[in-house]
């Protein structure tokens, strides 16, 4: 029956595209110019200074239809560390803290991603600093996914927070007068390689 044949073809096309539109995981490359990791601690109970980890590189895979298929992997070069005080930056890169000459990058790699409510995700992963690997859980907010207005490439943005104990990564000097707890705030923006089509 030619007529039902046509209908079947149309139906299959619709079904195929409906799946394709939502199911495929999208791979995004992190934009270092719009990605920051800010670390904040308490200094003697008086102030809560911050340091900034920049030049972050990495990849985010996000699958809106199958969130656990999502993943993130980043490297954080310690050359991009900026604590706003030049002498302190030097001290942070020295053997007293990050030993940047021996361990030039920190890294994070997700081990599981799960939905945690409206636009919220829970991303568990492994944070590596100075060769020391510890599990970390990020509380993530999906800010926006859509075409970038400048170049139309699929773009996605997230914020995330977590708290780590710096002593667990061989960075415990000065605790507890300078807090062992370091609160991490992350923002990131990432783009797919090219617009689909």
């Amino acid at each position, binding site marked *: 029956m*030619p*007529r039902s044949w*046509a209908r079947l*073809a*149309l139906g299959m*096309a*619709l079904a195929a*595209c*409906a799946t*394709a*539109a*939502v199911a495929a995981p*999208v791979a995004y490359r992190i*934009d270092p*110019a*719009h*990605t*920051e990791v*800010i670390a*904040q*601690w*308490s*200094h*003697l*109970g*008086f*102030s*809560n200074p*911050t340091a*900034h980890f*920049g030049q972050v590189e990495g990849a985010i895979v*996000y699958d*809106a239809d199958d969130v656990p298929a999502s993943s993130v992997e980043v490297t954080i070069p310690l050359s*991009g560390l*900026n604590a*706003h*005080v030049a002498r*302190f930056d030097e001290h942070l890169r020295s053997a007293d803290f990050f030993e940047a000459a021996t361990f030039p990058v920190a890294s994070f790699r997700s081990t599981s991603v799960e939905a945690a409510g409206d*636009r919220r995700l829970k991303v568990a992963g492994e944070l590596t600093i100075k060769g020391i690997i510890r599990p970390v859980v990020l509380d993530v*907010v*999906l*800010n*926006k*996914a*859509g075409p970038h*207005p400048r170049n139309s490439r699929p*773009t*996605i*943005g*997230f*914020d995330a*927070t977590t708290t780590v104990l710096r002593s667990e990564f061989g960075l415990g000097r000065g605790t507890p*007068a300078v*807090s062992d707890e370091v*609160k991490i*705030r992350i*923002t*990131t*923006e990432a783009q797919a390689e090219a617009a689909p*089509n």
Partner: protein
Amino acid sequence: MNTTTKTLLLPLALTLALAACKPAEPPAPAAEAAPAAQEAGAPVEAQVEGVSGTYIIDPNHTNVLAQWNHFGFSNPSANFGQAAGTIVYDADNVAASSVEVTLPLSGLTSFVADFDAHLSNADFFDVATFPVATFKSTSVESAGGNKLKVTGDLTIKDNTHPVVLDVTMNGFAEHPMLKRATTGFDATTTIKRSDFGVGAFAPNVSDEVHLRITTEASVAAPEADAAG
């Protein structure tokens, strides 16, 4: 329907079907500012005992972080460092307290070198003409517990507008190394950058800028007192 019509219509229908579904994108929720910073690292909710004094701001432990929204995707920040100034705290009469700060724009960093250069030029801060921003309080009042409400004039590029800071007193104690009376505060506020002549690219890059401040300040060294 004859075969010719069918062969024409079927591709058309398929094309339409595909075109109809193609624009489907992941939902794009409205842009939202980053979750407001809780007082990260702020140690305890115990009542802070204020100690009267004139405290000199320590630029090495003072940050003014400005955060904005970039096209709804990310919430980048810049730091205004090298802050210099004085905090007067009057424990018996909080309203007699005051703060005065100078923020040299040479201390501004967005953590992206190209962008720092852009922020410094005439599109934004015009640092060559306006090398500093300033804040001078006009009123200080208690806001319950360890909170203060500090109203003042923020001046950027000769544009002066009132700003209200929500302030948390972190502590008053002798600094363990300096052996001088020391205090620390955190503060937050939100301003519209277009009010200060730095509105370029709003609203795609948000006009609203969230400010998070932390500061530490100590009384002058005893030598200075003796000399004065």
